[in-house]
């Protein structure tokens, strides 16, 4: 037998996320619990991803009603679906080729949805114009990001494209970048300052990179994943000036824009700031902004709906971008329907408005209450500290681990926070992600977990975490 063993070196070099390892261990524990094997906990709680539906947060009814009617148009005559949902489904079906959501969407996505998204952006950005033709609907925002990495990454050796990436961030992005063969240039967010993005650090990262690679793009995540940072307008202005001066293409991940916690924090889009800065910035800085239906209050991860809006892209490059948007399909129709509703939700006076706003508000309240509980409980636990979570769906908590933990982990050949997470999973039935998966400063250790769960589950999580932590710390002190 001589099975083929030589495969793409790029694929081989992709690092399998430790998160996957933990998740498969979690699946085994679940099976064992089902088989009646005794554990110290009755139920496993998996907070490793931002998938809120899997933890019992209910989908938005209006969205699902419209989708159901699009799938099965006989429902357009059913009183089980509210009139405005039926109306929306009708208009989406009219915009589908052949009147069926089973047909391929046109290049770039359904025309109606691109218009809705464009109107949404204009409203969000206080009137800054948005052009539907510059919006591309994709199979989740990750696909759009990947297409841009494909366009950007080239060259060899010191001419290889580099991308500045925040630390901490998330492993899927670094895997996608590795997959394209790009050079990752990390810039560290300042934890002590609430994970602030500091200009000196961007400068340092860029200077360090030049010569090894050709830094062409700056990736920012705002609101931050997993940092929970929400950038101020001033900070965004600085980043834009930096990108302009250093000739960097801005890749702006804004998928958490719907999840801002508390009245005193505001999301401002990069595009808005760019345009309000005026010429020459608004006419020159190249920017791709990503959004998706997977996060926020919708949480429709499984639908795979996302979009990218392109600003100041070279028209000739746009032609090639189109080839990819063509070839890789223009997303799934279900994802696009979800985007349409994200961009154009029921309005005051519509039959579905009361239920819609109640559902959205209830999720927002849950998130806010969880953020507060996480902050107040964990900051009171010796050996843990947590920066304010201003946005996004994650808590990223620092662990102050005793030297003995670090030594033992080193002996076992695992990262100390990975060891912590493995034990937390086995002993307390909590599945969270170690900071080493997200990136962190040398010598600092973290865990990341999603805050999108029912309040009572969050309470249970905090109790288990607290008691595991003190037990763990005692063991090693």
């Amino acid at each position, binding site marked *: 037998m001589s*099975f083929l063993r030589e495969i793409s070196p790029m694929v081989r070099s992709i690092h399998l996320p430790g998160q996957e390892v933990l998740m498969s261990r979690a699946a085994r524990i679940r099976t064992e619990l089902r088989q009646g094997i005794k554990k110290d906990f009755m139920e496993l709680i998996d907070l490793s991803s931002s998938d809120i539906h*899997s933890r019992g947060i209910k989908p938005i009814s209006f969205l699902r009603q419209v989708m*159901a009617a699009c799938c099965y148009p006989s429902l357009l005559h059913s009183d089980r*679906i509210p009139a405005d949902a039926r109306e929306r489904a009708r208009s989406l079906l009219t915009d589908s080729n052949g009147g069926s959501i089973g047909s391929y969407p046109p290049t770039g996505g359904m025309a109606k949805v691109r218009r809705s998204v464009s109107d949404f952006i204009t409203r969000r950005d206080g009137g800054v114009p948005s052009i539907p033709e510059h919006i591309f609907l994709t199979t989740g925002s990750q696909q759009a990001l990947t297409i841009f990495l494909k366009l950007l990454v080239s060259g060899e050796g*010191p001419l290889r494209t580099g991308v500045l990436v925040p*630390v901490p961030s998330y492993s899927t992005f670094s895997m996608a970048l590795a997959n394209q063969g790009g050079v990752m240039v990390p810039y560290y967010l300042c934890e002590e300052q609430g994970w602030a993005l500091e200009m000196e650090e961007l400068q340092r990262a860029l200077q360090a990179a030049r010569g090894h690679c050709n830094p*062409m793009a700056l990736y920012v995540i705002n609101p931050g994943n997993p940092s929970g940072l929400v950038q101020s307008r001033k900070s965004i202005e600085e980043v834009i000036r930096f990108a302009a001066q250093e000739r960097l293409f801005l890749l702006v991940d804004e998928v958490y824009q719907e999840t801002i916690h508390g009245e005193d924090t505001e999301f401002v889009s990069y595009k808005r700031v760019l345009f309000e800065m005026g010429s020459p910035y608004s006419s020159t800085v190249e920017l791709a902004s990503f959004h998706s239906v997977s996060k926020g209050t919708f949480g429709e991860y499984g639908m*795979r709906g996302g979009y990218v809006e392109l600003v100041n892209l070279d028209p000739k490059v746009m032609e090639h971008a189109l080839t990819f948007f063509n070839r890789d399909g223009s997303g*799934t129709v279900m994802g696009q329907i979800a985007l349409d509703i994200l961009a154009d939700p029921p309005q005051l006076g519509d039959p579905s408005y009361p239920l819609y706003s109640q559902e959205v508000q209830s999720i927002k309240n849950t998130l806010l209450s969880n953020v507060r509980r996480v902050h107040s409980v964990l900051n009171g636990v010796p050996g843990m500290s947590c920066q304010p979570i201003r946005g996004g769906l994650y808590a990223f908590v620092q662990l102050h681990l005793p030297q003995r933990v670090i030594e033992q982990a080193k002996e076992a050949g695992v990262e100390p926070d990975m060891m912590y997470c493995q034990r937390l999973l086995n002993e307390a039935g909590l599945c969270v992600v170690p900071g080493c998966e997200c990136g962190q400063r040398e010598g600092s250790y973290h865990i990341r977990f999603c805050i999108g769960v029912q309040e009572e589950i969050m309470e249970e999580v905090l109790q288990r975490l607290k008691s595991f932590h003190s037990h763990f710390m005692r063991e090693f002190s």
Partner: protein
Amino acid sequence: MLLRRIIWVVARGRSPLCDSATVIYPTRQLKCAGCGMVNPSLQSPHSSSSRTFSGLSTTRCGLIYRKMSENGAVPRRGKVLTLDTMNASVKKVEYAVRGPIVQRAVQIEKELKEGVKKPFDEVIKANIGDAHAMGQRPITFFRQVLALCTYPELLDDNTFPEDTKNRARRILQACGGNSIGAYSASQGIECIRQDVARYIERRDGGIPSDPDNIYLSTGASDGIVTILKLLVAGEGRTRTGVMISIPQYPLYSAALAELGAVQINYYLNEEKCWSLDISELKRAVEAARQHCNPRVLCIINPGNPTGQVQSRQCIEDVIRFAAKEGLFLMADEVYQDNVYAEGCQFHSFKKVLFEMGPEYSSTVELASFHSTSKCYMGECGFRGGYMEVINMDPDVKAQLTKLVSVRLCPPVPGQALMDLVVNPPQPGEPSYATFIKERTATLRALAEKAKMTEEILNTVPGISCNPVQGAMYSFPRISLPERAVQEAKAKGVAPDMFYCMKLLEETGICLVPGSGFGQKDGTFHFRMTILPSADKLKVLLNKVKEFHQRFTQQYS
């Protein structure tokens, strides 16, 4: 140069996110051979990089140094991402099925809407295998279950048959939080993979299928591109070569161009109904061994765009050839239910492989692909699909599993639909009769249209069309007058592109020229789907007939 492609540039701290990363430490100064500049900040990740660097032209060196010195408040000049700075392999990627003809068709549609007068009232898009766009109705059962899955409050609605509810409950139970909005495993929902495996076993007369070998995908294309990506390695003469049929489906050539793999053409035999000759495979592989490392053989059966259905004998021969030459087989079988011609039958590569005995079934590596987009379903918008991998080295399979996790999970509604396709209503269930009626009607209509297409096109002098044995397309050969060929050349377009563009402008019919799929030099074709309704298709075919006669007259 096969250095690890992910390189961390770390000045302080350690490399997060990626254990396998290469961390670069300062080693020595480098002097540019071209311009003689020394850059103190330049560090060498390993010895070969100095070679690479000195191999650069002076202008390129100048460029990076100039960029490095631009630290002051210099206003931007031009764009960061331009055709010059863009990934060069992207420029080679083309996709004919939605190429210039289609772009022009979209424009014409817009003009018609704005009231511009044309010699026709509507654009007929016979360019793409999009059945629903051409008026094919979805299967009621599928859509009922999908509606229930998206809005489970309807599970108590008595207008839905009981079996649709059972099916929806089963799918929802397999989803996180009972929501199809939840994330699924990257490989796909487990119980759906089990259903796929059972479907394959039924289809292949009991040959076992392991759910662990099934990967759900975002349409078949996602699976195909993923496998190609995995298999492409080496540089220069060791670079992976991938054999694809000519004519081919442009997804393959586009993916190979993007991945920088070597495309190895083997020609189907038009005179013998687009059959696949083993002698041609041999010729192609031997010629290719001179300059690359042929490792993959792609087969599309039933054929796209050529519509041929491979005989069992032919599949056996191909498998023997792959075994002898040590090739990984990729079988694109998305048209497996679309077989129309009498005497033709679909045989899966997997079934034939296993029936050939352990000598082959335990050694030949195979990936086969299926999707929800074609057959009688035509559900392109849901992007459902799967692949089954056979005999893949366990280590490579682990790499594949890792690779699919980069693109997160396939759309869950597409996974649900795939589940219904592989597990349709059974005799005795309330939806069975309607399901069979709808499926039969769709497949019968396609068979009639396949026949009609062949018949009408063959009445046109200068057009010859092979029988459309399967799939959804005809790929007739057209003879073009020398003057038309010359004029096209003068304009810098392929002659059949010239022909199709004129056809579009004069009749509103949108087809894809054969040059987008590849064809023997000096021959010209177009691809036309058989998907428009029978009435419309008849009109369309007669318009093509008239146009062809007019065109021939005009240029002779």
